[in-house]
């Protein structure tokens, strides 16, 4: 029974992990940017949720869209105003730039909000129900469901909408996309905004179930990185697969090796996948 319980826990966690990582994967796949700011958007989304709950009593699931929209616009303008200036420069230029912006974001958050861990304690935080002896915490289930919804929503957006198609076109052939009348600067900004918006929403999810602090942004970033590389870089189903794998590895790893080694095991799997299947479990290049 313990195994079944851990399996369920892992899957529930994996759904949320997919939502954490999918925006990171989008930016990496479309623009070839290793976006160090990703964890910062998650952290800020979490803080928006925390403060709205703490100051005004807004339910975290209600403030999720607000976090998403706020982070979309923040991301959109960061890309349009700053990152687009060096988008044609080397991979390391954008990496260093987003690293610098991350430092600014985190230090400001530490300055204004301190490094204390904060958590959202809703009335229903402790609710759970049992199915065949397996305990399912209500909040974890909601995080799983919304995580899948966000990931599936992005999949739908990329596959069906006019803008999603333009994002794929820019990824496949930039010059041909320009000939179709696509403005790359705007498409990059939109892509980055969507990624940040998804991170904001995922941050709201995280804060509904876990404690957050300005420095947790690095943890989110590291998880996103592992999930994307394990699942396969730059594709949405890869983020889902990577999220589930990481959820399983962390939970079963905690059972066999103790919770202290959770993160280390995540990286061990990362290395293993890189040795055995460097393109990731569902690896294909880009959002095609």
């Amino acid at each position, binding site marked *: 029974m313990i195994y079944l319980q851990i399996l369920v826990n892992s899957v529930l966690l994996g759904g949320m992990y997919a939502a954490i990582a999918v925006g990171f994967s989008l930016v990496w796949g479309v623009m070839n940017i290793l976006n160090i700011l990703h964890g910062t958007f998650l952290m800020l989304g979490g803080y928006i949720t925390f403060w709205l709950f703490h100051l005004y009593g807004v339910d975290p699931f209600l403030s999720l869209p607000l976090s998403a929209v706020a982070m979309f616009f923040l991301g959109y303008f960061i890309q349009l105003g700053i990152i687009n200036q060096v988008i044609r420069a080397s991979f390391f230029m954008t990496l260093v730039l987003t690293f610098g912006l991350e430092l600014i974001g985190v230090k400001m958050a530490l300055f204004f909000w301190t490094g204390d861990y904060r958590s959202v304690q809703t009335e229903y935080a402790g609710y759970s129900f049992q199915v065949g002896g397996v305990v399912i915490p209500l909040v974890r289930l909601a995080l799983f469901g919304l995580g899948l919804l966000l990931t599936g929503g992005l999949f739908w957006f990329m596959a069906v909408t006019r803008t999603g*198609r*333009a994002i794929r076109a820019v990824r496949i052939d930039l*010059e041909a996309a320009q000939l179709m*009348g696509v*403005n790359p600067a705007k498409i990059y900004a939109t892509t980055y905004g969507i990624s940040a918006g998804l991170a904001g929403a995922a941050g709201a999810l995280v804060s509904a179930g876990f404690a957050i602090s300005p420095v947790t942004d690095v943890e989110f970033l590291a998880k996103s990185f592992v999930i994307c590389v394990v699942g396969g870089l730059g594709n949405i189903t890869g983020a889902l697969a990577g999220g589930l794998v990481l959820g399983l590895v962390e939970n079963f790893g905690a059972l066999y090796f103790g919770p202290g080694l959770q993160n280390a095991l995540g990286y061990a799997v990362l290395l293993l996948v890189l040795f055995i299947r460097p393109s990731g479990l569902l690896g294909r290049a880009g959002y095609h």
Partner: protein
Amino acid sequence: MSRGETRGGYTTVSANDVLLSVTGLEGGYDQVQILWGVDLEVSAGEMVAIIGSNGAGKTTFLKTISGVVPSRAGTIVFDGIALEGATAKEIVERGISHVPEGRRLFGPMNIEENLLMGGYARGLKDHELAADLERVYGIFPILKERRKQLAGSMSGGEQQMCAIARGLMARPRLLLIDELSLGLAPRLVEQLCANLVEINREGVAILVVEQDVLTALDLAERGYVFESGRIAMSGTSDELIANQEVKRTYLGI
């Protein structure tokens, strides 16, 4: 436009009919200048060919017209409006559509998605483009049959049809085609030429770059010969075919 009026050459076109007028165009990439003062005109509804050897600047010329390569000097006037400083997006919106060399389809997308990308600049929703899809499927029925097939998995001829159809989805008044026949079997080239004549009859002006001189001059009413980034010669197709230098250089007779 005083230069355009005083320039000689042909006199069959009245100023009102001029759709595209290029004067003294210079351009290229970073440190390399490729175009050294190109003068060229296309009238509304006309079919014009550009011929010339590799590296003569034909592709760069088309890219400069469609705004993906910046110009350094000279003017491009389309439908009475100077395109100076216009972005690629604005140029498509004004009615110039570019079918690039090598097709450049979005390989991992299916045919229909490629065609919908062609209509992107018009800012419409997919269902509003449905009538236009039917129109281009009318010209290229094979594309309708294969509309869910990935563009990258099709034969060269089908890809070229898809590229031209994608160009038409922007509802252009001028269609630029770079290397129509490259790598295609003669039977397919004939088919494509027939398609272009049909498209041209519907009032779309066509400026086609074509390495096969006979195909080019058979298709077009007039032609320009590019040499080292300049226009070496221009005239009606009959004049060019009869020209000794064209015969010697491009036809090998």
